[in-house]
């Protein structure tokens, strides 16, 4: 089964690699991400599979917006000087000679990698120790959550910091004028006119929010967690934008809130793990896990809401 999935996986990747038309690259990339997510699930890591599924949905949307800009720009210039037209004029043999050094270089690197890869057994000492001790050390029933919230909390803090930096960088690098932030007189979203879509999404939206909350609060029991729940909550806000077609949430306040939540994550982490307050005050570890996950989820929801707002609402409207 895994072999079949991997063959499908590599085929879809080759589809992505060989395609020249940008819209189709994005669609094939969506297929590739779906197969990757199922492969992660078969490898026994439901957390990573859920994260990959959510991420691929968002990445595909971002790329689609990007493609829209690309075609708009090309229509403005008239696509004469592009590689797609130029490639047809170069003969095949000349093209092959041109890519030969790159082919040899990467094939050589692949050979080196396979030659030098260690062939012996991997030590399972660390895995056995984590699996045997995580219930008494950190708590909860999910070992992956226990590791990224207990043993390797530095990694999670670093990752949260990187996400904050990325969001701030995105919101400062892309174009915006003052009017786009407050939002007035923008174009309407496409589904806004369809009463059937609006009615259905009104019913579905609370279910999405409930699902996000479920992912937050059952992190100690099953797969899921702050990151995946944050994606679900962000998609709730996106659905809200799609239904009512309003831009009433001020972005600057959301950025400020994200920074505050990041400070909260740092404070909770320092108090709980590095100063040992959880053990000292006999707080049940479930409370610590749920607090951290709600904070991380809020931060991720804020980040993805800002990114979506940035790309869809403002970049398209301007």
């Amino acid at each position: 089964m895994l072999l079949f999935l991997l063959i499908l996986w590599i085929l879809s990747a080759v589809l992505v690699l060989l395609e020249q038309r940008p819209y189709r690259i994005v669609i094939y990339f969506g297929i590739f991400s779906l197969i990757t997510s199922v492969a992660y699930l078969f490898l026994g890591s439901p957390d990573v599979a859920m994260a990959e599924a959510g991420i691929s949905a968002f990445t595909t949307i971002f790329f689609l917006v990007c493609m829209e800009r690309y075609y708009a720009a090309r229509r403005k210039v008239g696509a004469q000087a592009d590689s797609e037209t130029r490639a047809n004029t170069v003969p095949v043999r000349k093209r092959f000679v041109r890519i030969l050094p790159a082919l040899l270089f990467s094939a050589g690197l692949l050979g080196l990698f396979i030659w030098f890869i260690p062939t012996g057994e991997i030590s399972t000492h660390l895995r056995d120790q984590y699996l045997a001790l995580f219930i008494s050390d950190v708590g909860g029933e999910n070992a992956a959550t226990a590791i990224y919230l207990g043993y390797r909390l530095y990694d999670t803090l670093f990752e949260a910091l990187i996400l904050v930096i990325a969001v701030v960088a995105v919101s400062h690098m892309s174009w915006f004028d003052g009017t786009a932030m407050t939002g007035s007189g923008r174009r309407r979203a496409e589904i806004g006119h369809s009463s059937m879509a609006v009615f259905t999404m009104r019913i579905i939206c609370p279910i999405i929010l409930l699902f996000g909350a479920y992912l937050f609060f059952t992190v100690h029991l099953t797969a899921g967690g702050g990151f995946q729940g944050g994606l679900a909550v962000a998609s709730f806000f996106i659905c809200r934008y799609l239904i009512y077609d309003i831009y009433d949430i001020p972005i600057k306040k959301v950025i400020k809130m994200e920074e505050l939540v990041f400070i909260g994550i740092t404070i909770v982490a320092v108090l709980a793990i590095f100063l040992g307050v959880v053990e000292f005050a006999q707080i049940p570890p479930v409370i610590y896990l749920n607090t951290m996950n709600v904070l991380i989820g809020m931060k991720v929801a804020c980040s993805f809401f800002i990114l979506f707002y940035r790309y869809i609402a403002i970049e398209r409207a301007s």
Partner: protein
Amino acid sequence: MDILYILSYVLMGAGVAFMLFGVVGLFKYNRFFPRILVASKIDTVGVLTLIAGVALRHGFSFFTGKLLLIVIVMLVLNPLVAHILARSAYLSGFEMETSEEEEEQD
């Protein structure tokens, strides 16, 4: 018990068959609107029959309740997705009878 097992396998096979018909249809038609019609059949009929088979196979428990939730969400959302795709394609000027060169342009 055996009858239920056989019935579940029949349902699962029917779901896979519906999906197969859908995929064949995707390659058969080369216009946008027939393709949307066929693709929405994969989403709704195929997946629903497959999930019904899985529920029968597993017996009635808490797991079946989760499957029921998935069925409800799919039943509501998948036709909606097809509707929005077709509607926005129609609104953005995608004619019903497009020539093949226009389709190839992305």
